[in-house]
């Protein structure tokens, strides 16, 4: 048994840290926070220059051919520092779908731009009337010769306002069973009939609702078979479901510990000596370790070619649910000054704990709600029947 990620991974971790020290400036983080957009062109360009937009892709596809454990070490550092990679992440995930399943023309058009940070792609699965049940998508795509007319709306189309395309799941056959009447398209956003409205979230993140009023899309932008959209989605989801949130837990823990070292109680005793503070510190650190181990196991199994069913769900479920509990109990221990938000001169740790309360709740919802993941685990790991 060996729990180390290995020399290559640790080398890349070191490089990533040095890179972030140099490139991820306060100014970039500030801009992301102010705008609520988890993307920054300068940062994306710097990643491109390192070749890190596609570090896990095969060399012949324009990537660095790094193994999954290296990608994991890189990802742990990126997350821990809250580097703005969300738009890059969705873009490269869709680019990977195109690499796997797209036509040569689609590959020629999209892949060089994606690898060069010259294109952004948003996700368009969720709709106002369906979230977790993505296969219930009602947005229609109707074929007329060589093109499709799309009408409907998509919810939480994060980054649509800066993206070039939305990777969309649309209903092409209303008569077929719901999973078999769907097709995926890469819909160019800069065209008549597309309307993007900002939606603001509790964490300050900007997302969107997007409307498609008879938007015409050439058939060349169809990804995969007609009515084969659910198979395409399986490829795209496989990526999203192996996320973990130990990076957020690190940021919360570091803010809490910094507070504990500075703060004193009414009698002048250090908060770092408070048994409840020490217990919370230790519990958060422990849960962080477990979060990282669960993800490490999922990635290791994948890299060994072992079957993965539910391990990614466990990593996502555990890390987000525990993050939410950590944020709540941390705020209770910090007390009322923890309520002060960023911008207030006396805000605890610059409002980082207050912000984590906002941010943590979202993590249990996106990338598969906790209920979706519990369903996957109970069916595929425990062998229980589908439950209601």
């Amino acid at each position, binding site marked *: 048994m060996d729990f180390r990620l290995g020399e290559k991974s640790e080398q890349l971790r070191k490089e990533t840290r040095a890179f972030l020290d140099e490139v991820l400036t306060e100014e970039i983080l500030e801009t992301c926070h102010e705008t609520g957009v988890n993307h920054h062109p300068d940062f994306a360009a710097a990643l491109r220059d390192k070749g890190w937009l596609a570090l896990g892709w095969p060399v012949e596809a324009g990537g660095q051919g790094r193994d999954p454990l290296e990608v994991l070490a890189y990802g742990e550092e990126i997350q821990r520092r809250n580097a703005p990679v969300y738009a890059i992440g969705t873009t490269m995930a869709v680019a990977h779908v195109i690499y796997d399943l797209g036509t040569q023309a689609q590959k020629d058009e999209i892949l060089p731009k994606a690898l060069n940070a010259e294109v952004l792609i948003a996700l368009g699965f969720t709709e106002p009337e369906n979230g977790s049940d993505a296969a219930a998508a009602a947005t229609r795509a109707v074929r007329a010769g060589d093109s499709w007319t799309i009408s409907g709306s998509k919810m939480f189309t994060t980054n649509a306002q800066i993206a070039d395309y939305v990777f969309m799941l649309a209903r092409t056959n209303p008569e077929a069973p719901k999973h078999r009447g769907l097709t995926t398209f890469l819909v160019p956003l800069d065209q008549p009939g597309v309307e993007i409205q900002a939606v603001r979230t509790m964490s300050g993140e900007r997302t969107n609702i997007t409307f498609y009023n008879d938007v015409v899309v050439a058939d060349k932008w169809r990804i995969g078979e007609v009515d084969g959209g659910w198979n395409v989605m399986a490829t795209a989801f496989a990526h999203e479901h192996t996320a973990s949130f130990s990076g957020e837990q690190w940021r919360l823990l570091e803010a809490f510990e910094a507070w504990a*070292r500075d703060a004193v109680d009414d009698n002048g005793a250090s908060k770092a000596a408070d048994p409840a503070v020490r217990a919370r*510190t*230790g519990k958060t*650190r422990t849960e962080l*370790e477990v979060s990282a*181990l*669960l993800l490490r196991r999922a990635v290791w199994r994948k890299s060994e070619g072992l079957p993965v069913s539910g*391990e990614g769900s466990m990593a996502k479920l555990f890390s987000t649910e525990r993050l939410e509990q950590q944020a709540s109990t941390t705020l209770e221990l910090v007390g009322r000054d923890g309520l002060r938000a960023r911008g207030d001169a006396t805000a605890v740790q610059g409002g980082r704990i207050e912000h984590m309360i906002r941010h943590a709740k979202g993590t249990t919802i996106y990338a598969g709600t906790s209920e979706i993941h519990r369903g996957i685990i109970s069916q595929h790991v425990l062998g*229980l029947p589908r439950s209601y």
Partner: protein
Amino acid sequence: VDLAPNAEQRQLVDAFAALYADLCTPAEIHAAEPHGYDPALWQRLIATGVVAMALPESAGGYGASLVDLCLVAEQHGRHVAPAPVIEAQVAGRLLARLTDGASPLLPEIAAGDRLLTLALRPAVAGRADLVPAGAIADTALVVVDDSVVLMSLAGHATAVDNLGCMPLADVEDVSGEVIASGPGAVEAFATAIDEWRVLTAAALHGIAARSLEIAVDYVKQRQAFGRPLGAFQGVAHRLADRATEVDGAQLLAREAAWSQDAEPSRFATLAAMALGFSAETARDTTYFAVHFHGGYGFMLEYPVQLYFRRARTWGAVLESPADSFRRVGDFRLVEAD
């Protein structure tokens, strides 16, 4: 990264799994209550080398790593075995460490002719309370001030009836041969307690893992309102949470065991993390395992209650999860300063 036991370790696991399955049925566990000791099981474990494997080669042992012992402890927990495996292993290793493998007691311990345990806390005013395996051992290692004392328990130990039907005893008038003194002795003892934390964490993982299986089997069979219990999200989703924690507890206990040789600077922290997390996991998993059996889970006749009570006892004789987590916090907040 390699998270899988190697071929030898898989053989080890198979051997102990078969032994426990053979000799450690719910009926035998019941029969061994209230003081949780089955001499026939213990003799078989000794014959299989359960203590000898834990001792260094310099002491005539097999020099097993803590990872190997961790894998055995998982099986031990899965069968809530009434035998003092962890205490005998950890105490034997400590005695070997303190005497450079030269203690004449070591061969007797390995052969099962003598049962050595250890008090988990230093004696206070000549008394060591809730000594694990104290009710069945003949000899114990106890810390008195900055010395480690080897004492005979005859006439000193009083068995304590307890929640987990463990062979616990209070030990009075602590006195005996001083084996070692000074900072080195105290440090060696602290290492032994960390080994005990890791192995107990692994055993608690085993308790949790097996009780989860029992619960899952039951909710697949048992019908209510026209469908299996497991088809209700109120049941299935709670078991999914437990399954996640059970896997996490296993990974963490194994990582802690692995770190003893591979990353010794993290060993003490990981040991405390592992015990705290496994104890919580065993507590919560057995809670739901009993609960989803309904009234049957509360009956002595159903084995699941055996797991429930031990889940709340095996780690708690040293410390609560909150104690373990405070210890982790101390390493970060106090010692890091």
